[in-house]
């Protein structure tokens, strides 16, 4: 009987400790981050080629990919961040090096790069974007065009320190 009582007390104590730890644990990231980091999307890294050159535009351009890069937590815009992008376009497939290019964010953390018109590939009209400059954790995005006729696409990054 006393043994059972002891176990129950231990259980209650343990449970209490766990609850306290849980609440404290929840409190910490809540204080540290208002804005959560963007997770890598499934298939985002497919046909990735590291080290794409910074270019004025990819091929002949015409399709605009734009977005923002911000810091996790306080959401501060991140300037000078290198964003790489690639897609299946009218000028080449995803795995062609000429379908790849990179650009830098401006002082407001905004990036914008033109590539040739995106064509549905492997069943979906989509683009790939990557942040892979080591300072923050690597993120791969694979946003979809809402229609294959679209001529622009937005994608946004929230990065956390590596």
């Amino acid at each position, binding site marked *: 009987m006393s043994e059972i009582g002891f176990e129950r007390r231990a259980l209650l104590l343990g449970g209490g400790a766990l609850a306290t730890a849980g609440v404290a644990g929840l409190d910490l990231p809540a204080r540290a981050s208002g804005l959560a980091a963007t997770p890598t999307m499934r*298939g985002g*890294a497919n*046909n990735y080629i590291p080290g794409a050159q910074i270019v004025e535009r990819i091929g002949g351009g015409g399709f605009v990919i734009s977005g923002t890069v911000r810091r996790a937590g306080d959401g501060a815009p991140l300037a000078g961040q290198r964003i790489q992008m690639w897609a299946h376009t009218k000028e080449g*497939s995803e795995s062609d090096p000429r379908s790849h290019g990179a650009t830098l964010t401006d002082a407001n953390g905004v990036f914008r790069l033109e590539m040739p018109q995106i064509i549905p590939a492997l069943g979906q009209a989509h683009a790939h974007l990557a942040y892979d400059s080591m300072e923050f954790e690597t993120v791969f995005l694979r946003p979809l065009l809402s229609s294959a006729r679209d001529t622009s696409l937005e994608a946004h990054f929230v990065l956390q320190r590596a």
Partner: protein
Amino acid sequence: MLLTLGVPLGFAASSEYLAWRDPIYISAGFAGVIALCLLLVQPLLAAGWLPGLHVLRSRRAHRVVGTALVVSVIVHVTGLWITSPPDIEDALLLLSPTPFSVWGVAAMWALFAAALLAAVRRRLSPRTWRLAHTSLASVVVFGGAVHAMLIEGTMEPISKAVLCALAAIATAVAAVVPWLRARRRAPGRR
């Protein structure tokens, strides 16, 4: 029949997307379109409903078309794998972000299983054979149709939807009719 198969094939063959694909990708895509067309032919051959074909010849044609279906799917998957290896690896491992992949993969395995079953059919009782082969074939047609409908590719949406719907209806009717006939023949049996 010629119209239901010819119209979607014709639209797919004249798709503007073909201009921006290489020959391997085009062949892989077409192998998929042809496989979808064969899904409508298969249940009709199995049931002997195509005019001008005797039951025995119809069954033999069903076997030939079944083999062609397996070959088409292998060409489809291999061609797409050459076009974009990581996308197909994701699909086969069920990790793909595209909602249609899992339907295609399910249909592919069901097709291989249905074909394998046909190869060992003599070792099975007629009842087991029919039930197993028909169930697998239903997964192939339903999975293949959903796979095709969710894809944005060379096929024109309306002719694709008509083809998928007809294939699904033909399969369902071909699966149910022999069962209904058997029940009518033996009314007391439960």
